[in-house]
């Protein structure tokens, strides 16, 4: 009887401990999200007197967005940006971690990590000069490898989005490396000793053991990388302003433009909801893919 009573008695302490976080999550995430969801069903334009007060319009904002060529292009840009940036950055950060976990390469850690401590605005400003046509450092470096293609990274519609990907890769790969480095350093040494005795080569060790053992780290890094890729906007503002002709415009930048430049609150609320849905789709898919095959580590 006493045991049963003990089992039923639930401590209030864990709930009390999460209260402050819950308060801020409700205030800064849940409430704005509900407000945006509600706002997305209204025409609410601050610079048009008749729409200064919201007017209900049903799904008009969503249908306007999906009919707009501009929005479809920006959506495609965002998906391209995330789909290319996240895998490339995550794979590179894993290889940096494997490389720099070795004692003799430790000294390179700072070099690889240092872009992560720069604010994105500073990183974009530095890269603005790296990308300068004719004499920019990046073009000069490519020239050493025989590159003779176009150099106008920020003005060429076929290159501007990739310029943003390059900056984010440069900045983020070193940061995600830290997580992998922690994961790699915690891998059980005896397993590798056994593998060595069994005669397993480095490729087998990596794919059969290292990668599965780092599954949790990979899930965390990929999730953070996806969220980070969706919410970066600073380098768009500094480097391209979404141009030329929206070729480098990303969803969050467009959201800012519609809300603060076009003063269209209703439409920007609809974009917010679409952005959150996209993030959820990417994150849940990531969880499902990562969790497939069981909780083996």
């Amino acid at each position, binding site marked *: 009887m006493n045991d049963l009573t003990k089992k039923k008695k639930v401590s209030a302490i864990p709930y009390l401990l999460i209260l402050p976080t819950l308060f801020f999550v409700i205030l800064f995430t849940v409430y704005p999200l509900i407000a945006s969801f509600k706002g997305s069903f209204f025409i609410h*334009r*601050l*610079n*048009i*007197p*008749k*729409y*200064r007060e919201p007017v209900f319009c049903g799904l008009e904002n969503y249908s306007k967005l999906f009919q707009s060529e*501009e929005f479809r292009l920006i959506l495609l840009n965002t998906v391209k940006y995330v789909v290319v940036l996240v895998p490339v950055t995550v794979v590179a950060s894993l290889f940096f971690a494997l490389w720099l976990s070795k004692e003799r390469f430790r000294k390179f850690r700072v070099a690889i990590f240092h872009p992560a401590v720069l604010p994105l605005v500073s990183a974009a400003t530095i890269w*603005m*000069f790296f990308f*300068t*046509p*004719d004499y920019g450092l990046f073009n000069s470096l490519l020239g050493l490898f025989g590159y003779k293609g176009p150099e*106008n990274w*920020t*003005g*060429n*519609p076929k290159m501007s989005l990739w310029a943003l990907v390059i900056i984010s890769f440069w900045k983020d790969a070193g940061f995600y490396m830290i997580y992998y480095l922690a994961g790699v350093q915690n891998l059980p040494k005896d397993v590798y000793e056994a593998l060595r005795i069994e005669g397993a080569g480095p490729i087998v060790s990596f794919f059969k053991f290292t990668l599965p053992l780092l599954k949790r780290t990979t899930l965390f890094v990929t999730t953070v990388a996806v969220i980070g890729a969706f919410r970066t906007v600073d380098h768009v503002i500094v*480097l*391209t*302003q979404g*141009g*030329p*002709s*929206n070729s480098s415009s990303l969803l969050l930048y467009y959201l800012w*433009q519609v809300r*603060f*430049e*076009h*003063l*269209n609150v209703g439409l920007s609320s609809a974009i917010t909801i679409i952005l959150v849905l996209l993030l959820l789709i990417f994150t849940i898919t990531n969880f499902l893919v990562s969790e497939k095959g069981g909780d083996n580590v």
Partner: protein
Amino acid sequence: MIKKIGLTVLMTAVLVAGVFASGQQEKKAAEDSQEEVVLKVAYPVAVDAPVADILNGYATEFKKTHPNVTIEPVYAGGYTDVKTMIQTSIDGGGDAPELAVMLATDVYDLANAQYIEPLSDLLANMEGSDAYLDDFLPVFLENSYYQDKLWSLPFQRSAVVAYYNADLFKAAGLSEPKNLQELADAAQALTVREGDSVTRWGIEWPTGWPYWVFQPLAMAFGKNIVGADDTTVYFNEPEVIDAINYYNDLSAKYQATPAGVQGTWGNVVPNFLSGNTAIIVQTSGSLSKILSNADFEVGVMGIPGKTSGSYSVPGGGNIYMTSGLSDAEKRAALDFAVFMTSPENAAQFSIATGYIATSKSAFSSDAMKAYSAEHPQVAKIKDILADAGKELAIQNLGQVRSIFHNYIQAAFNGEMTAAEAMAKAQEEADAALADFK
């Protein structure tokens, strides 16, 4: 009789109440004028000049004559950052800066969204307000009025100009271009190549944020892209299309400038100063930096016309008063705005920054006369401004400007022909302006 007495008592009561109320108001006004007021003033500082030092000086100087008013400068990167700061503060019910320097062209959106207060009524109570307003160069007040009210005062103003390396012109036996053909020929003649690479471009015309630097070119062909009212744009006009084709010809036909969109605003002045570019289209706000760093003679001109003339548009920021201020704050804010724009300060600000002095008296001040005598380019810019056209100031500016930028950049990059791009731009801009007509 009783009625008469009653009426007399009533009238006396009304009169006494009126006098009492008026006395109370005067007393309140007197109290207001002595009330401690703290004014936050938001400035964009991303310019080629030590604006923060100058504005800190203004705050200190103003305190000497207005001991009850404390000025707290709030610095932000550029005009967009200041505007976003004001919007988020007011929309979120926060404490927005009482004064802000924002683009003169933002007046319609800011007023419609009730972010700003008109200044007309406050100025009407100011002694000598007519003379004060008449003293501004008229071109700078063009975007200050809306709905018969004055909403902003000219402060940090500039114009589109072309700077040229006069030494290179002399060495090549060229004189200042008088028309667009001469400009293209000069740019071609001054371009230098070594093998496949270009060591000096004839001209750089940055087009990452193109409407402003493009407007004088369209005007040179005979049509401004914006109408006299606040809801008409002329994007799809033959003259505008000719202007785009001319820009494209500078690279394709004359090989005198890099091809396509050039998002290189920040590189253009260093390229010019280092002799890597012979002519640049830029803001007059870079004048001080260019004059103090150039080791060659610097020429300044407007964009030459198709056959003759000189074209430009004004630009830059005005001082706005944000909404929701108390009477005491409004009075103090107006006093500080008037102080900032006084002829003496306008002259000093112009000399220190390269921005154009906003008032006629500023140009006749001793300091400005001495500076102009030393740098004749200053007087030249004033002349260029005399014939300047209207900057793209329009209802729903943010959206209309984005539409224009998207399509003109598509034309510059060869993704669409100039005619196709401008037809689409006109169609979308008309739709974006439909709610305002």
